[in-house]
């Protein structure tokens, strides 16, 4: 997407978001100016957001096209979305499987992502990392790490 199109699309997003914020802030209660309520700052913020999104939208039309902005930029590739999925999966299994297993799966998978190397080396590296983290965070710094249903 070229910058101009990106700006147009993103400004629409901010416009809508600003609108939502304004509506919800009015419902929360702005209070009076003498005794401001919780909705006052969100209201101001929402209104500013709407205003600025309009400015950006208009700028997308009127700005002279610079060379660097003419190029199309691809947003995201399969690696990024895969890593995102991985992260979500990790968060999901963090408590259920416990720190050790979840992290082992997570690291093992990601280590192989960019370049396939031997599973043994990958597994060993993951295990080594977990051991270090366990020693530093759990034993020394006493950070509570979750145990899964398997008990560790």
């Amino acid at each position, binding site marked *: 997407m070229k*910058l101009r199109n990106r700006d147009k699309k993103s400004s629409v997003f901010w416009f809508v978001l600003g609108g939502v914020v304004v509506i919800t802030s009015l419902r929360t209660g702005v209070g009076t100016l*003498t005794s401001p309520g919780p909705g006052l700052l969100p209201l101001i913020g929402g209104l500013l957001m709407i205003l600025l999104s309009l400015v950006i939208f208009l700028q997308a039309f009127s700005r002279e096209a610079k060379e660097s902005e003419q190029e199309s930029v691809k947003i995201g590739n399969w*690696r*990024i979305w895969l890593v995102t999925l991985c992260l979500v999966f990790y968060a999901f299994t963090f408590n259920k499987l416990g720190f050790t297993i979840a992290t082992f799966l997570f690291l093992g998978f990601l280590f192989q992502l960019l370049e396939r190397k031997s599973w043994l080396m990958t597994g060993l590296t993951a295990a080594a*990392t977990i051991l270090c983290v366990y020693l530093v965070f759990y034993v020394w710094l006493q950070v509570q790490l979750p145990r899964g249903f398997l008990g560790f």
Partner: protein
Amino acid sequence: MGLSTSLQPMNLLLCFVGCFVGTLIGVLPGIGPAGTIALLLPATFRINPVGAIIMLAGIYYGAAYGGSTTSILVNIPGEVGSVVTCLDGYQMTKQGRAGPALGVAAFGSFIAGTIGVIGLMFLAPELSRIALSFGPPEYCSLIVLALAILTFLSSGSMAKSLLMAVFGLLLGCIGIDPVSGNARYTFGIPALLDGVGIVNMAMGLYGIAEVFENLEQEVVRTVFKDRIKNLFPTLKDWKDSIGAMIRGSFIGCFLGILPGGGAIISSFLSYAVEKRVSKHPERFGKGEIAGVAAPEAANNGASQTAFIPLLSMGIPGNSVTAVLMGALIIHGVQPGPLLIPRHPDLFWGVVMSMYIGNIMLLILNLPLIGLWVQVLKVPYRLLFPLIVFFTLLGSYATNYSVEDLYITIIFGVLGYLLRKFNYQLVPIVLAYILCPLFEQALRQSLLISDGSFTIFFRRPLSLVLLALAFFALVFPAVKRRVWKEAKPKFPWKSGLKIGLSY
């Protein structure tokens, strides 16, 4: 008093750890000081606030030192303030002069850091005293001014930067409203009652989003193979670079005080200035030592003086100081004009440890070059999972809640998308951390004035601050219309242009 605090063995150790870790992450591209400080924050819960800040501060200015190593050796900036150093530093390496380049960068950073700490020592208490006479309306206007200057100095569209600041402000509204005690925008999620969390935000926006950006390309790292000889610059090198070091130091120290005027702008500006004042400007870009000395001094000076507004007035100037502000709050130290009077041990302890830290860094950076070069050999396919893992671990460790992991991931995706759509991330973090203060000051002002917004304009100091803010926001638009094709007469203007267009 500060000296005795900073010389305590525990604090010395923490200072060393901070500087070491800071240099390490400065060397490693893909993770920066903001994310690292957020990551190590939970680890500091068991240490007292003074020690914690000493260590975290060490990470920040240590990263400024470390970033120069990769820029010079392999043409990859480890940290944003070292981008300009690549220009001449890498050329010097190709000419076999990596040693003097590294040496000059380290010494320049040391000089700048020392000047910065002196500035901190004298300016911060003074500014704090002035800020104590601020009432809520002045404080409100000061925050508006800070965000305006940040917007002015940010590259890209000002409207977009302002929008990001507003976004950050709104994010700051999520959580329990301080006055009424009601939950705002929490959607019934308990994890959001305390707000989204500065740690989650910093980790996501700066840790995970950075990894995503790197995953876009195959990151091919050229490994540095040669041995490094002659670490010490020759007498001629000194002669050529000392002026650059001093000029760079002052530029960096001055710009570092301004919100948004940090490592990037000061390093670009000092490079531009050196090129203008040099007798051999054609040498720049081909391995001119002043082109290494000045930006390195500037980025260090800037990271040192960034503490001035934070410690004297509770106004962070960039995302790193914003996270540090979060650290102070978590440790029970309220940032603001009362910080220095109420916690003199903290302030002077940190200041003195900065002197010590600068010396430590000078020593760390020269003999340990070999170590840093080894670190660079870690392939990215191993590095990025570790970065992501530690990012998530850090988020988890703040509150032992898995919801924090999800929040961090969301910020990661958000940060990546925002960057792709050309939005600046710094205003979000700054506005977010300033939101509670801003809202409180706003409400108190309205209470004082009986609901009238004119109070901000009736009080002289507040009016001045708002006028400056207005000027900062309106000036560029005016300038574009009035001075269409004016040639820059002064070096600093061209430097600003380069900095602004980055």
